[in-house]
């Protein structure tokens, strides 16, 4: 069993979505959430704990260890 997580930033702090990459239903749910957030302007970053090397991702990867979804940025 491999558990993965998606952290979505919001005004009440981040919300966490976990999925087991071996469970199709959970992966489908995570993919739907990912695509929905992307459509709403969120940027997705695959990260590793401790600030180690990550990447921006545009397609959902069920094997990503941890995803952080950041709302659209704006200039101040």
């Amino acid at each position, binding site marked *: 069993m491999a558990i993965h997580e998606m*952290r979505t*930033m*919001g*005004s*009440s*702090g*981040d919300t966490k979505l976990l999925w087991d990459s071996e469970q199709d239903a959970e992966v489908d749910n995570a993919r739907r959430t990912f695509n929905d957030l992307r459509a709403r302007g969120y*940027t997705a*970053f695959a*990260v590793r*704990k*401790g*600030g*180690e090397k*990550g*990447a*921006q991702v545009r397609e959902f990867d069920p094997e990503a260890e941890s995803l*952080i979804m*950041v*709302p*659209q*940025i*704006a*200039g*101040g």
Partner: protein
Amino acid sequence: MANYLANQIGYFPTYYASSSTSTWTTTWNAWNYTSTGTTWGNWTTTAATTTFPQVVWNQWVNDVLRDPYQFHQQTEAEEEAQRVRNAQLEERAAKHRADAAQAVERAETLLHENLRPGQRRMLRERRRFYVRSQRGRRYEIERGHHANVWEVDGSGKRLNRLCVYPTGGLPEADCMLGQKLHLEYDEDRFRQVAHITPVVA
């Protein structure tokens, strides 16, 4: 209550606006009884004296302006309803404070989980940390929601201020993490959106 007070501090008695019998009766009596303890009483009985304008004015102030609450005695049911309403509002305010504190705590945890040890230490000690960007530039992110990102040179001297932030009313630490991730993995987009101001020496 706001409407009630607005009526009281105007120049007409409350009974024009109030549906409460006790309220308009009290107001009417304050205006019209002929004893010297009312506005009208002072007006009519002291008119021959040299001080009547002051007496009438003082009575008006006493009757209507100084203590507007005297014209509305809350019933027990109204007081109970107010107590219940106050309790509900206090409970809601307490929940809001607790939720806000939890949001801040979650955001701080997420930020710390995604910083290197040196960045965590710098944030704790100096309320800022450095980031090496995707294109090799060096940035300083200080505590804040926006206007808190600086492009710096190798010695830490500030060159440009970049105003850009993730939308959505995020807690401070989430804003800072969003800025960091963009600088590390989506720098071109970050600079494209940012309002960049050179630092004047």
